[in-house]
C-alpha cells in the first residue's frame, strides 16, 4: 500500500541530534516503487544516519518516516514487523560469525517469519544461488572473503523478501578487486525493479544504476536530481567542489 502521496518511503522533516551534534537538519525525501535512490556526499555529512533512520535503527529526534502507507515513527508501530519489509546491508557485513552462511540466512526466516526449516532452507539456497555462492552454504563467515561475506549478507536481507533495500557503504570495507562482484549483485537487483536506497562512494555505480541522486553535506540535502544530469551539470558550488575532490 503506497503512502498518501503515492510514495513507498517518505521522510518528512527529519532532524537528528547526537547530544549537541545536529547531524540531520531537516531532511525531506520520497521514493517511488522501483527507485534506486543514491545518496552521496562527504563523510560526516549524515548519509548513514539518514539511511538508519529509514528502518529506525536510529530514531529521528523529530520528523516522520512514512513507509508502506503508515507513519512508522508512530510509537505504536511494531518495528520488528516493519523491518521484515526493509532489508539492510552494512559496511562491515555483520554476518553472525558463529553460524554457517546458510544458517545466517535461515535463522531470521524461521525465527521472525516463522517458516518451517525446510521452507527456510529452500529460500536461503535460492538466494545463495542468486549471489552465486551456492557452494559456500556450509562455510563460516570467517573463512569467506569480504566480497563473499557481503554477498551472503545481501542474500540474508533478500531472503526476507523485503519491499525496500538499504545499502550502507557496502563496498567501502572491501579490497578493490572484490568491489565488482558486490556491485554486480546490486545492479542485477536494481534491474529486477527492487526499490533501493544506496549510500555509496562508487560514483560509477551511482551514475549507471541510480534513478535518483541526492548530495548531502552537513546534515542537509544540497542537491538532488537524475544522476546523469547531476553529474553532468552540478548546480551548487559545494557539489562541484565534491566532484573535484573525488573524480
Amino acid at each position, binding site marked *: 500500500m503506497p503512502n498518501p502521496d503515492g510514495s513507498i518511503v517518505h521522510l518528512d522533516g527529519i532532524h537528528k541530534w547526537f547530544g549537541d551534534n545536529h547531524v540531520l537538519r531537516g531532511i525531506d525525501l520520497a521514493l517511488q516503487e522501483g527507485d534506486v535512490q543514491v545518496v552521496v556526499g562527504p563523510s560526516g555529512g549524515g548519509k548513514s544516519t539518514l539511511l538508519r533512520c529509514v528502518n529506525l535503527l536510529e530514531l529521528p529526534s523529530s520528523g516522520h518516516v512514512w513507509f508502506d502507507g503508515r507513519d512508522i515513527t508512530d510509537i505504536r508501530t511494531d518495528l520488528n514487523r516493519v523491518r521484515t519489509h526493509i532489508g539492510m546491508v552494512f559496511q562491515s557485513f555483520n554476518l*553472525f560469525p558463529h553460524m554457517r552462511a546458510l544458517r545466517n540466512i535461515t535463522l531470521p526466516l524461521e525465527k521472525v517469519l516463522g517458516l518451517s526449516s525446510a521452507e527456510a532452507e529452500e529460500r536461503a539456497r535460492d538466494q545463495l544461488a542468486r549471489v552465486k555462492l551456492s557452494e559456500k552454504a556450509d562455510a563460516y563467515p570467517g573463512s569467506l572473503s569480504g566480497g563473499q561475506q557481503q554477498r551472503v549478507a545481501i542474500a540474508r536481507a533478500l531472503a526476507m523478501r523485503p519491499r525496500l533495500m538499504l545499502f550502507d557503504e557496502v563496498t567501502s570495507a572491501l579490497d578493490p578487486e572484490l568491489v565488482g562482484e558486490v556491485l554486480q549483485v546490486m545492479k542485477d537487483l536494481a534491474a529486477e525493479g527492487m526499490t533501493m536506497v544506496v549510500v555509496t562512494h562508487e560514483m560509477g555505480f551511482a551514475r549507471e544504476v541510480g534513478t535518483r541522486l541526492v548530495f548531502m553535506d552537513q546534515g542537509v540535502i544540497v542537491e538532488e536530481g537524475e544522476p546523469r544530469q547531476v553529474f553532468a551539470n552540478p548546480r551548487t558550488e559545494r557539489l562541484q567542489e565534491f566532484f573535484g575532490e573525488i573524480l
Partner: protein
Amino acid sequence: MQVGTEGSAPDIRGSSSPFAKTVFAAGAAALALVLAGTVAIQVFYALAHDPDPQVCLANGIIPYQPGPPSTGAEGWQGVCNIVLGLTSTAEEIVLIGGIAVGAVIGIVGLRTYRRMDTRRKRDHVITGAIFGGQAVTFGIVLWFFVQSPQKFVSQFMNFYQLRGHDGWALVNGIKFTLLLAFGGEIGGIVIGLLLALLEISGRRSVRAPATVYINIFRGTPLLVQLSIGYFGVNLGLGLHLSSFTVAIAIFALNMGAYSAEVFRAGIQSIDRGQIEAARSVGMSYLQAMRYAIVPQAVRRVIPPLLNEFVILIKDTSLVAILGLSLTQLDLFSAGQQGYSDTYSATFFLAASIGYLIVTLPMIAIVNAVERRLRSGLVSVAGGAA
C-alpha cells in the same frame, strides 16, 4: 653466517662451545644436587629398615608406646627417617656442595656471558648461571631447615596418620568440594547471565535492582554471606535446610554476582553491528540476544568464568564455618576433622595437595582455552574447529 635460500629458516643461534656447555651442565648439576640429592637421601632412609628407637629418641622423636598412658605418636618411624635423612652428613654434603658449585657457576656465568660470541653460547651460560643461583637459594633455605627439623616434621609430615585415620576421608572430601563448587558454579552461571541481561538494559529501573544485588554480593565477604544464609535465613525462617544445601545456594548467589560482571563485559564486547544486523531482519531485542549476541559472548567468557570457578573451588573451604555433617565433609573440613582426631597437621598438607589435584588441571584448561582464543579468534568465534 650462511643465510638459507630455501627450506627451513636459517639457524641464527649459532653453535655452542665446551666452555658454555660446561657452565650450563655445572649449574644444572648444582641444582640437581640440592633438590634431587635431598630427595634421594629421603628415599634411601625411607627404604632402610625401621630406625633405631634410641637414635630417634636422641633426635627428639619419641617412639610410640601404647598406653595407658600412651607416649609418642604412631608413625614415628617415618617421622624419624625423614629427620635422620635431613640431619645426616650426606644431606650436609649435598647442600654445601650444591651451594658452593652453584655460587661459583653463578659468578662465572655472570662474568662471562657478555663475551660469548653466539646466541646459543650466551643462552647456555646464562641458563647455567640461573641454575647456579637457584641451587644457592634452595640450598640456603634447606640449610636453615635441616638445623632443627624435628618439630616441623613431627607436626606436618607424619604421613602414617593419614592412613591411620580414615584413608578415604580426603578422597571423599575432594568429591564434596567438587559438588559444592559445581553446584555453585552452575547456579552462578544461570543467575549471572540473567543479571547481566538486566544490567545492560537501557532502563535504569531494570538495571538498578541488578546493580544493587551485584554490589551487595561483591562487597561483603563470602564467609559473612554463608553465616547469614545458614544461621540467619535458614534457622531464622525455620527452613531446616542442611548446611550443604545452604552452602550451595550461597555459592550460587555469590558466583552469580561475579559472573554477571563477566557476562556483561562479554556481551558488551560484541560488535554493535551484530545486534543491528539482527534487529534489521526483524528480530526482537530478546531474539537478537538469544541467537546472535549471547552465543558469541559465552565463547568469549569461558576463560574468565573458569578462573572464577578455580577461585570458587578454593572458597568452598569456607563452608567449614557452618559445620557440615560428617558424611558430607568437604576437603578442608575433612582435613580439619583428621587434625582434631590425631593432632597431626599433616592433614592440612594433604588437603592442600587435594586442592592442587583439582585446581591444577583447571588452570591448565584455562590457559589452553585462552591460547586457542588468542591464536584463532575465527575458529572459536565461528565454532569451525
